[in-house]
């Protein structure tokens, strides 16, 4: 099984390798896979106030196809809104990278990684809003707000 040139390209020149600050409230972190399976992807997104992913970073423990899938994923989601990124399908990754059947699961994991990062980001946003609501407003409307 020879590697497709696209997979090799992403391996030799991976896009967006790195780490964003997990503690940053605008950063969502997705960590999917397991060492026991031979595939672990960490994908992070930094989302601005307008809901646009302005930066994305990844790190992957896995084969060439896994590295390429996650590298491609970060490339695609940058500049998209969170809603747009959420509908990226693994089949698109398979097509772009010419993944053979035995490597399709790498693309599935990349799709999961995007969704996982988005879910983490959304959860952080929801938690922040909950905190904002719970904090008493100066006029004492907190009782109504909590209802």
């Amino acid at each position, binding site marked *: 099984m020879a590697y497709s040139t696209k997979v090799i390209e992403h391996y030799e020149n*991976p896009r967006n390798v790195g780490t964003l600050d997990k503690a940053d409230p605008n950063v969502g972190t997705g960590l999917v896979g397991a*060492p026991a399976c031979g595939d672990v992807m960490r994908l992070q997104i930094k989302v601005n106030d307008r809901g646009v992913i302005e930066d994305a970073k990844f790190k992957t423990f896995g084969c060439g196809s896994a590295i390429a899938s996650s590298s491609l994923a970060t490339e695609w989601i940058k500049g998209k809104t969170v809603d747009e990124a959420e509908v990226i399908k693994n089949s698109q990754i398979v097509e772009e990278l010419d993944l053979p059947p035995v490597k399709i699961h790498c693309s599935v994991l990349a799709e999961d990684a995007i969704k996982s990062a988005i879910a983490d980001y959304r959860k952080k946003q929801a938690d922040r809003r909950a905190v904002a609501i719970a904090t008493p407003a100066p006029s004492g409307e907190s009782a109504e707000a909590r209802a």
Partner: protein
Amino acid sequence: MALKFPIFMDNHSTTPVDPRVLEAMLPYFTTKFGNAASRNHAFGWEAEEAVDYARERIAQLIGARDSKEIVFTSGATESDNLAIKGVAEFNRDKGNHIITTVTEHKAVLDTCKRLEKQGFDVTYLGVGTDGRVDPDDVKRAITDKTILVSVMLANNEIGTVQPLEAIGAITRERGVLFHSDAVQGVGKVDFDVQRMNLGLVSLTAHKMYGPKGIGALYVRRSRPRVRIVAQMDGGGHERGMRSGTLAVPLIAGFGRAAEILIHEGKAESARLSAMRDRLRALITDRLDEVYLNGSATHRLPGNLNLSFNFVEGEGLMMAIKDVAVSSGSACTSASLEPSYVLRALGVGDELAHSSIRFGLGRFNTEEEVDYVAGLVVEKVTRLRELSPLYEMHQDGIDLKSVQWVAH
């Protein structure tokens, strides 16, 4: 001297044919093309002469007393099948129990699985963390229904050499037949069918710088006389044990390959061990978190199997794409399961996924070793920069404590 790419360091999967072996084979394709079973003319006689010569060399290589004890087959897979099924069928009335190990080649394991479906009882002995089977485990497993013990000489993945002499002493004492798949070790590590009390031995040419498509089964003729039921019926070749016209050119090559090992095997093993140790040192001196799989001392001279923690095996193989090696990673097998041999050692799944097997051989050079070591260090370092696991490790996170969301 310029390096030639790609560099081949996968000599456990196969070996290049030695030019001397090729030279020995050619006449039997062109001018001396007779069928060795043709008793009535010179074409047959000269073919038979080549076959006899090869039989003698192979017998000498393994310490057999009589060249008649060498039966030619299409390869070690067929030899394993012939040995195990042949013994099982012949001894069906005496007993139905076979003992083997979990780290055997699939040719042995799958044959045993088939026999289990036919009502045979197979014990698969476990191995230690170094891959060695304990002879006492063999002793404990033998019952009065045991008809065969099969233990490989050396493992193809991790290079571990089994204690055949100790096991042979036990099987002799209990009167049980002893078979060994000696494919990886013959001519490279100490091996002698008399000292090890072996009744059957599987061999192949393509792991010893001979051609693919030819192997042999040693079948002892005295003390004890081993009887097997043939698996290939036909013209009664090989004393009725394996019918089929002999592949004379391949056999001529096999014989020459054996002859070369008789004269050069010892020196070659010393050279390969030194090169292998150098490769290991050059890598482990510059990388941390690298683990050796298999025994450090009882090991095939050219074999080095290392796990590079936090880096996946196939990814690493792609990174060193001008070097041919192999990996115990699931990604490289069609089944997505990591190597069953590494599993048997107790190596965790994630280290199994991170393993690379280097197989040095006759035609590798020290220059290649130095180059490959440097390349491996460079690529592992780079892949660790891409690895979330390495980052977590550096941050002091215990990976075993993480709740992974596997799918």
